[in-house]
């Protein structure tokens, strides 16, 4: 085991997969010589060569499309889209092509492409470097969608994603790259070395897709969340002294319905939380499932915590971000209902 931040854990996952499987190639803007703008691919081109870790033109549609072509010809491409906010020029290739190659060819062709992309706010990125567009991808049939909340999971989930024969969009909450973040920007940054999930196995291991992690067991309320909000929810519940069960979904597609449902049936109260915009957010889907599966166990209306229905404003990053205050308000509302 070694101390790793999330960048190092992701780097380790790609290093191991490049070493294990000659079909694995990396491609993206600035990822080769430079090692990526967030340094996730640092040193990998030097180690595996320019034919395995490939710098690409600034053309996300081209990156996704050529990754599809490579995958159909036997490679296992891991494409980096520099920011999730830049993924849209590749959207047609993802929605109309990547998601449906297996379906439309009745399984004769498939495209094992992993698309890694940093998402989320908290780094003063403004409206073009802060988005959390996961719901756009969960809505597409044929794409798996992953978002880790810590280095250990990030590595295991990325290895699983690369080995998966279906396409995966792998969102990396960039605010968590260097440490867990509880939603308070005024507190000094905490490194991953202080957190148990910053202890990462240096070798090969997998974390399965579709298996949620019960980060904290509790009896009073279930908080179903993923990404940065896992840490915010933990801190808010602790501050309110609420015995919350906190569930980190880790993968949104496939979704671990069983763990969610068991928890809510047990606690009878539920909050869903994500950083992305509320309206038509993934929280809406979670809410529907809980309502369908747990209606007779619910003791209070389900609460939803999310970013506002606006673009992410540069000056009001922390007023936009669903921080502890918003989680606490939801906890209060869900606990008050008798």
């Amino acid at each position, binding site marked *: 085991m070694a101390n790793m931040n999330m960048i190092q854990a992701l780097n380790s996952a790609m290093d191991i997969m490049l070493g294990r499987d000659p079909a694995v190639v990396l491609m993206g*803007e*600035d990822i080769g*010589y*430079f090692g990526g*703008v967030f340094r996730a691919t640092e040193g990998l081109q030097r180690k595996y060569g*320019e*034919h395995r870790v*490939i*710098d*690409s*033109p*600034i*053309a*996300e*549609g*081209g990156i996704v499309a050529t990754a599809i072509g490579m995958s159909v010809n036997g490679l296992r491409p891991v494409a980096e889209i520099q920011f999730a*906010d*830049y993924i*849209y*020029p590749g959207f047609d290739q993802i929605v109309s092509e990547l998601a449906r190659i297996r379906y439309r060819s009745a399984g004769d062709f498939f495209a094992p492409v992993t698309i890694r992309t940093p998402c989320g706010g908290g780094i*003063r*990125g*403004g*409206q*073009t*470097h802060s988005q959390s567009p996961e719901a756009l991808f969960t809505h597409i049939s044929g794409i798996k969608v992953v978002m880790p909340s810590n280095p250990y999971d990030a590595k295991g989930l990325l290895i699983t994603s690369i080995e998966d024969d279906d396409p995966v969009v792998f969102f990396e909450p960039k605010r968590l790259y260097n440490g867990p973040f509880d939603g308070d920007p005024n507190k000094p940054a905490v490194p991953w070395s202080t957190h148990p999930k910053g202890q990462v196995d240096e070798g090969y291991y997998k974390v399965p897709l579709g298996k949620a992690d019960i980060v904290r067991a509790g009896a009073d309320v279930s908080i179903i969340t993923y990404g940065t909000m896992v840490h915010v929810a933990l801190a808010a519940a602790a501050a309110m002294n609420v015995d919350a069960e906190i569930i980190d979904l880790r993968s949104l597609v496939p979704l671990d319905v069983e763990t969610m449902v068991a928890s809510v049936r047990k606690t009878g109260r539920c909050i869903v939380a994500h950083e992305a915009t*509320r*309206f038509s957010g993934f929280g809406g889907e979670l809410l529907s499932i809980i309502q369908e599966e747990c209606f007779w166990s619910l003791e209070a209306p389900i609460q939803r915590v999310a970013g*506002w*229905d*606006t*673009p992410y*404003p*540069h*000056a*009001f990053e922390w*007023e*936009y971000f669903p921080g502890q*205050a*918003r989680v606490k*308000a939801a906890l209060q509302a869900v606990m008050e209902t008798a």
Partner: protein
Amino acid sequence: MTKKSRLHLPRVPARPGETPDFSYVQLSPAGSVPRPQVNARARDMGALSVELVRVLDDSGDAVGPWNPHLEASDLQVGLRHMLLTRLYDDRMQRMQRAGKISFYIRSLGEEAVGVAQAMALRPSDMLFPAYRQQGAQIVRGISLVDLMSQLLSNTKDMCKGRQLPVMYHSRANNIFSISGNLATQFPQAVGWAMAAAIKGEDNLAATWIGEGSSAEADFHYALLFASVYQAPVILNVVNNQWAISTFQGYAGGEQRAFAARGPGYGMPGIRVDGNDFLAVYAVTQWAAERARTGAGPTLIELVTYRGAAHSTSDDPARYRAKDDAEHWPLGDPIQRLKAHLIKIGEWSEERHQAMSAELEALVASSWKEAIKFGTMTEGPRLNPSTMFEDVFKDMPQNLQRQQALLRKELG
């Protein structure tokens, strides 16, 4: 027997620790490239996309058919705008390092692009800039206080705190809102120009893109639509050799110059010395005349060099030779125009120093004024509840509700 195919990887001339090498940059002697009639057929102007239009020669003289024969007073204004751009950049870079603003992008070494091109156009022409044409903002008369207020996201910010620093706009001065996403403005400018043609107006649109982002599909949409509809638009590719760490060869500049995309789509493409104020002015003026006389669009490749980092978020010492800029064969745009003005007896070191001091004082006093409207940490602050405005023209119910919730959340 044929050889096996092998993935070609464009050669990067000099990484850290290597000797800078710009032998790949094809140069033409100043004054050597003919200046065609503006209504010549694109197919007869192919050489413009291969040669390099230059006016200022190495001894500081303006030579050849592209010499725009500007008045000395115009050249002095150009020099002033370029120097102001550089001093503004220097100070804002320092303010970012001091934690006063969150992000900044300098245009070091590329000042002639924004300045000379904006000067060659009319105020009624619409600009669709990228993030490194602050010189054009200055030429259009946007005050430094207004530019700085945008960087500060303060109460005077034209974007009301919504955009990352340097994403300016000015409706009153015909400068479109800059996007943080690359290349999107290129085909939008073509649409603006199509509308001018539909309405029968003689304004044109000019837009800028880096050579790196010319890889995006949007670039190709722009050329196609501009060519099909012969739109009155000037499409500028600023080839500053580097897209963050990615060398221009990876954007497709290794096999053929970016200007040569123009003839491929049926419009002239001109390669111009981007550090030569006079040459940049002249080709822009030529392209503007084409647009205004119904002769159609022009693609201009401005060959220049990104003298600084991409932004305050990267360190070029990690991916290119440290002394790269010093070896750049086309020199510095400010030094070159200054030398020319001195050569023709219209400038002096003393006047230059005096102007430099005056402009530095202007930048300093503008900063003092701008921070009165607030910084990210001190002074007046925009009301956070304004973030819900302008999502739509009329605020829908869900946003009204969220606005109220935020007020409650903030106490």
